[in-house]
C-alpha cells in the first residue's frame, strides 16, 4: 500500500510539473510550454494536476483515477488537435524546413562545427493523415510525455487501489473521452479516404468527380487546406477544368513555372495569385514566394554573386519577416562582404527570435567574427564564449576562435 501511495504521489507530481515543461518543441523558436498552449489546455493541465494532488492528499482514489483518465484523454486530444486541427502544425513544418536550410548553409559555408540535433528530421511531411500524426508526435516535447506518463500512472494506481467496480465513473469518462477523440480522428480518416478517392478520379481524368471528392475531403477536414500539396492538387484539377482564373489554379500554374525553372514568371504569377487568394492559400503562397527568393539568393551565392544574393534575401525578409533562414544567411554574407555592423544587427535580431541553442551558437560565433574584425575584442570574446556555452559538443569553430589554434 505504501508503494502504491508513493507511486500515486509520483504520478500527481509529474502531472503538476508537466505544464511547466515544453509541450511542443519548435525547431527554431524552441519549446512551447503547456501553460502557453492556448486557453483550453493552458488552464486544464494544472487544474487536472491540482485536483489529482488534492485527491491524493485526501485519499480519494476514484477522483484520482478520474484525473488520470482526463489527463490521458487530454494527451490524446492534444495530439489529434495538433495533427488535425491546429494551424500551428504548418508553422512548425515551415520552421523545420527553414532549419534544415540553415543547417545545410552552415555545413557548406561555415567553419567546421559538428552540431545538428540527433533527433532532427529534415523529411517531415504532412501530406497524409499518417504523416500529420507522425509529425505531431515528432514535435511533442517532454511535457506531453511527462503528462501522459503521470496520467497513465495515476490510472494504474487508482485502478489498483479501488478496482474496476469502484472506478466505474472513471471508466465511463474514459469511454466518453476516447469515443469523442475517435470521432475527431474519424473526421481525418474520412477526409483522407475522400482525398484518396479524388486522387483515383484525377488519375483517370475524371476531373469533375475528383474535384467533388476533394471538396468533400475539405469539408471533413478543413485543415488540410493548409497543406501546400493539397492546394497544388486542387489547383491542378481546377486547371484541368479550365477554371484558370481561380487563385488556386494560378498557384498550381505558378508552381509549375517554378518547377520548370521559370522563377521570375513563377514569382509574378504567385504574387498576382496571392493578391486574390484568401487564407490559408494566401499564407501558403507568401511562404512559397519567400522561399523562392531565398533559393534565388542561394543560387546567386553559389555562383559567387554575393551582392545579388543579399538583394534576394533582403527581399525575402521584407516579404515575410518570419523567414529566419533569410536572416541567418544574411548575417554571414554581410560579414563576408565586410558589412560587419549590418551582420551584427541581423545577428542580434536572430538571437531575439530564436531559442534553438545550436542555431544561436552559430549566430554568436558569427557575431564574434564580426566583432573581432571591428577590433571589439571583448565583445568578440563574449560572443565566442556564449557560443561555446550554447554548444559545447564538438564546436570546433569555437575551439579555434577561442584557443587561437
Amino acid at each position: 500500500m505504501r508503494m502504491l501511495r508513493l507511486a500515486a504521489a509520483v504520478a500527481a507530481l509529474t502531472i503538476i510539473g508537466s505544464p511547466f515543461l515544453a509541450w511542443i518543441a519548435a525547431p527554431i523558436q524552441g519549446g512551447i510550454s503547456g501553460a502557453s498552449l492556448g486557453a483550453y489546455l493552458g488552464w486544464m493541465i494544472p487544474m487536472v494536476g491540482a485536483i489529482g494532488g488534492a485527491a491524493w492528499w485526501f485519499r480519494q482514489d476514484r477522483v484520482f483515477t478520474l484525473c488520470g483518465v482526463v489527463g490521458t484523454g487530454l494527451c490524446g486530444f492534444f495530439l489529434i488537435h495538433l495533427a488535425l486541427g491546429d494551424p500551428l502544425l504548418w508553422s512548425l513544418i515551415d520552421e523545420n524546413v527553414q532549419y534544415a536550410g540553415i543547417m545545410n548553409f552552415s555545413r557548406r559555408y561555415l567553419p567546421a562545427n559538428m552540431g545538428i540535433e540527433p533527433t532532427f528530421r529534415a523529411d517531415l511531411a504532412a501530406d497524409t493523415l499518417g504523416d500529420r500524426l507522425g509529425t505531431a508526435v515528432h514535435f511533442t516535447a517532454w511535457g506531453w510525455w511527462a503528462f501522459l506518463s503521470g496520467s497513465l500512472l495515476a490510472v494504474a494506481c487508482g485502478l489498483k487501489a479501488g478496482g474496476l467496480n469502484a472506478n466505474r465513473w472513471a471508466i465511463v469518462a474514459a469511454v466518453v473521452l476516447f469515443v469523442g477523440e475517435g470521432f475527431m480522428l474519424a473526421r481525418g480518416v474520412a477526409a483522407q479516404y475522400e482525398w484518396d478517392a479524388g486522387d483515383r478520379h484525377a488519375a483517370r481524368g475524371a476531373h469533375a468527380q475528383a474535384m467533388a471528392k476533394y471538396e468533400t475531403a475539405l469539408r471533413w477536414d478543413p485543415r488540410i487546406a493548409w497543406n501546400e500539396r493539397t492546394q497544388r492538387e486542387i489547383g491542378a484539377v481546377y486547371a484541368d477544368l479550365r477554371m484558370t482564373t481561380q487563385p488556386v489554379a494560378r498557384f498550381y500554374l505558378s508552381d509549375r513555372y517554378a518547377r520548370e525553372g521559370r522563377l521570375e514568371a513563377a514569382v509574378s504569377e504567385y504574387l498576382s495569385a496571392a493578391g486574390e487568394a484568401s487564407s490559408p492559400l494566401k499564407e501558403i503562397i507568401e511562404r512559397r514566394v519567400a522561399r523562392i527568393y531565398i533559393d534565388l539568393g542561394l543560387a546567386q551565392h553559389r555562383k559567387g554573386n554575393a551582392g545579388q544574393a543579399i538583394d534576394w534575401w533582403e527581399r525575402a525578409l521584407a516579404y515575410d519577416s518570419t523567414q529566419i533562414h533569410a536572416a541567418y544567411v544574411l548575417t554571414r554574407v554581410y560579414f563576408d562582404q565586410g558589412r560587419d555592423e549590418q551582420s551584427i544587427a541581423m545577428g542580434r535580431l536572430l538571437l531575439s527570435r530564436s531559442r534553438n541553442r545550436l542555431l544561436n551558437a552559430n549566430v554568436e560565433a558569427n557575431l564574434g567574427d564580426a566583432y573581432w574584425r571591428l577590433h571589439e575584442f571583448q565583445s568578440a570574446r563574449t560572443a565566442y564564449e556564449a557560443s561555446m556555452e550554447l554548444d559545447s559538443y564538438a564546436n570546433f569553430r569555437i575551439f579555434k576562435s577561442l584557443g587561437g589554434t
Partner: protein
Amino acid sequence: MTLRDIRPLRLSAAIVLVTGAVMGLFASKAFVGDVPSRYPVAFNAAEWITATDEGPQAYFRKELYVAGAIKQAWIVVAATDSFILYLNGKVVDAEAYGSLNVSGIYDLGPWLHTGKNVLGVVARRSSYPGPAMAAVEGAYRDGAGIEHPFASDLSWRVASTEQRQGSGSILWHAESFDAGAWSSAKTAGPPDPAKIYSLPVPQTAFSMPPQGKWIRSSSIPSERAAYSYDLIMPARPDDAWIRVAAVKPYRLTINGVTIDGGPFDEFQQRRLPGTRIKKRDEDMSTDLYWIGSLLRRGINEIAVSSDRDDAVLAGLFLDGFAVSQGTVFTFGTDSTWAVAWPVDAEISADSTRPAVILMSQGASAESVPAKRIMSPSFPLSYTARLIGMLSLSSLVSAGIIFVLWLGTSKIIAAWAGVGRTEAGRWDAVMHLPVLLILGGAFLLGFDVRFDPGFPFQWKVIMIAAAALLVFKAGLILAARHPRARGREELPRSPSGGNRSLDAAYVAALLVLIAIGATLRLWGLDRQSLYHDEVHMVNFVQGLFDKGYPYKMIGPIERPLATYELVPYPIALSALLFGFNDFALRLPSALFGIMTIPLIYFVGWRIFDRRVGWLAAAVYTFCPQTILWSKYLWHPQQTQFFALLTSYLFYRAIRKDLLSPRYLYLSALSFIVTYLSWEGAGFLLSGLLFGLLAVKRTDSSWIREKHVWGAVGLVGVVVAAQLIRRLLQQVPYMVVGAGLSDVSLPTPFFLDPMYDPWVYLRNFLWLENNAVLTVILICGLLLSVKERGVAYLATLLFSTLFMMTNFIPNSAVRYAYYLQTILILASSGTVMLIMDRVADVGRLIDIRWARVTRATISSATCVMVVLCSSLFLKVYRVNAFSNPSGMHTRSDAYYIDYRAPARYLNSRYREGDQIISVVPNALEYYAKIRTQYFVEHYTTRQVVYDPSESSPRYLERIVGVPVLRNASDLQEVLATRHRTWVLAVPYTLFTLLSGSEVISYLEQQGKVVYESYNARIYLIGE
C-alpha cells in the same frame, strides 16, 4: 465446453488462439503477397575480379567503345562490402554495407555516348579476411537492336591505389586518364548468386527492351492528360513490374489504388565522392514500381495522369511485365490506351478518346529517361483494406484452430480417460511447435540471405499446419494406447540432483568453453592493433619502464588516470609471452573466455542450470562478445567484473537479511570494475534500482550498517580516482574537447545533442541483440514477479537510462559491459516462459507429450542461440543502420595500422620526413618517429607546449608539433627531400586536415599504398 469450463484453461486457450491468429496472418500475407521480393543477381559471363596483390581495395577500369547511337544500356555490379560505380568520370551510384557482398543495377542508357566510354569501379572491403573483389555485367543495345554485352574479366585493368594524372586533376576513372601502366585484373571465378545480396528489382526490369510507345493526348502538345488502359490477365500474377516515364508530378493508379513513392535507397547512402552523373530527385526518370500485389486475374485498370506534355518529356511511356506460373506477359502504351479529354467544369461526365502514338520507340536513346527503382507507398484506404483482411483472416483462422482444439481435446479426454481441462491443456502444448516454426521463419525474413517474403510462403504455412496435425495426431494416438503412457512424473526443473544430468551440464559447458576459446583465440592478432589499443600499449611500456603506467606527450609525463587496472594483465601477458599483438590481446581474450563459465555460474545461481547453459551458449556465439574479446582495451575486463559485481550484489540482497560478506565482496568487485573503466560507475545506480526491485516494500536495508560501509568503501575509491584524475589535468593546457573531459555525470538531457534513443539503437536493437530484447520485454509481464528477472531487467534498463541521460558522449562500447546482463535476463525469461507453458500441460503420463516438450524446449533454445549469434545476418531488423559494422560485427576491420607501417618501414630512408595521424601506432609497428601532425580545426585535442621549446601546438598522443593549414605544410615540406604522409585512419585524416591540405596532397603527392581505411602519400622524389 462452456465458458466456465474454459476459465481454468485461459492460458491454454490463449496459446491456441495466438497460434490460430498467427497462422491466419501468415496465410493472409501469403495470399496478398504484399511483401516485395528480392531477386538473385544472375551473372552469365562475369567473373569476380581482384587486384593482383589481392588487397582490401581495388580500382577497376574498363574502356567501352560504342559505335553509334544506342537504345538502351544497363549494368549490374556486385562487390565485397562496398563499391562506387563511375562512368566517364562521374559517379553513377554506390552501395556499402560491411560484411555483405552488395549489389546494384543501373541504367546507363542516357549517359553512354558514341566513342570511348570509361567504366570505373572501386571495391573496398571493410570486413576481414579476403581481397576486395567486384563482378560487373551489362550490355548496351545499339540502334539496330543488337545487344553488346560486357562483363568483368581479364580485359579489365586494375590498380591497388587511387591514381591521378595531370597534377592531380585527372582521376583514374576519367576518360582522359591513361591506364596503359595498369595491369590486367586477376579473375577469381564466377560469382555465386547465393553469396551476393540480392537485387530489389529483377534484371529484366532494366534489360527488357521497351514494350510500349510514347503516347500523347493529341498530336500537338497540350495541357495535362489522363491515360487509362484495361490490362487483361489470364491468371493472377506471381510477380509484376511497371515502368513509367511521364511529366512529374504524375498520378499512377492500378485497380483504383494510387501508387506514390520515392526513390529506393536501402543503405541510405548520404555522401558520395565526386560529381554525380544524375541528381537523386531527377525531374526526368523512368520509374520502376513493383505492382505484384495489385494485379488480379481478369481486367486490371491502369490509369496515369501526367502533368502538361509540352514539357521536357513528351507524353507518356509505360510498359511492364507480369509473371504467372512461369509465363511472362508484357504490356505497354500504344494507341489502344484511352485519353480523358479535358472538359469544362459545367460538364460532369468526362469523355475519352484513343491516345496518339508520338513516335516509334528507339529513334534515340534519350527518348526513355534513366530508370530508377521506386519505393512505393499506398493510400490509407488500401492499407486499411489490407489490415482488415489480415484481421479477418486471423480471426477466422483462430476460430478454426480453436474449434479444432475443442474437438481434439474432447477425443483425448475420452480416450485417455482424463478430464476435458487436462486434455485441453495437453492439446494446447501441441500448438507450440507451430509458433516456433512460424517464429523461426519470421526471423529468417530479417536475414539478408533470405527473401523478406520467405516467411509468408504457402509451403512454410503448410509445414506449420502439418506439424500441428502430426503433434495432435501423436497425442491422440498416445492417449489411445495405454502402453505409450508412463507413470512417473517428470521433475519440474532439471536442476535437481541427477548425477548423469550434472555430468551432461558440465560436459556441455566444457564444450562451450572450448568453442568460445577457439572463436576468441583464432585469429586474435589477425587485425592490427587499433589506436586505443596502441595507446594502452604505451602505458604498458611505461609500466615496464618506471613501474607505473605512464606515457610521454612531448615533454609532459602523463600517468594513466583512467582504466587504471587495465595495463597490469596486459603487462603480465607481455612478460610471459613477449611483446607482440597476440600476447597483448591475450588477457582480453581470456577475460572473454572466462566470462563463459562465469555467466553459466551466475545464471545457474540466480535461476537454474538451464538458464546458465542457455546464457553461456548465447554468450559464446554472440558477435559482439567475440569482437571485444579481441580488443586489448577495457570493455572485456569491465564486463567480466561488472557481471561478477552484479551477481555478488544479488547474493548479498536476495534474502531477507543482507549478507555482509557478499556486500563487501560486491563492493570490492565494483571497485575493480570502476578502475577498469570509470564509465561503469553508472552500474552503481543500476544496483540501487536492482536492490529496490528485489526488496520492493522492505526498506530495512536502509538501516543496515554494512550497506553504508560498502557504499563508503566504494565512495572513497571513486572520490580518490576522480580527484587524482582532475589533479593530473592541471599541469598543461588543452584546446579542444575529448573523452578526457568526461569525468562526472552531467544533465545531458538538457543538451541539444541529447539523443534519447541512442542505446536503444546501438545496444538493445543492435542486430543480434534485438531478439534478446524482444524476449525480455515480452516476457517481463509474465516474469516480473520472479526476483532474478526483476533484478537483472531493472539493473539493465536503469543503467541504460542513466547512461543515456547523464553521459555527454555515447558509443556502442559504453553499453557493452551490460551485454551479459541482457543475455542473462533474456535467458531467464525464456526458461520462465517455457516453465509456464509446460505448466499448461502438466504432462505426467504421456510419453508423446514429453517428447513434444523436449522438442519445444530444445528448439526454443537453439532458436534463441542462433538468432543472437554470428550465424544469422539479421541486418534488416534495424533497417541496415550499421553500415560499417564497427563494434557490431566480428569480422569488421576498421583501420589497418600494421600493413602501412610495414610498407613504410621497407621504404623509409634516413632523412625522410613523416606526418601521421596516429604517431604512436607507427612507432609501435615500424619504430619510426613522426615529425608532424596535421589538424585544420581542433577536431582532436591539442596541447600548449609547456616547455616552450616549440612554437607550435602539440598533438595529444605523443606530442608532435601540429601543422594547422596548407601553408604550414608547405613550409615543412620545403625542408626535406621526401615526405611520407600516413593518412591512417584515412576518414579521420580527411576530417582533421581540411579540404585545403587534402587538395594540396592530391596535387603534389601520390598515393603509394592503401589498406583498410589507410593511405600513404609520398611527396617528393
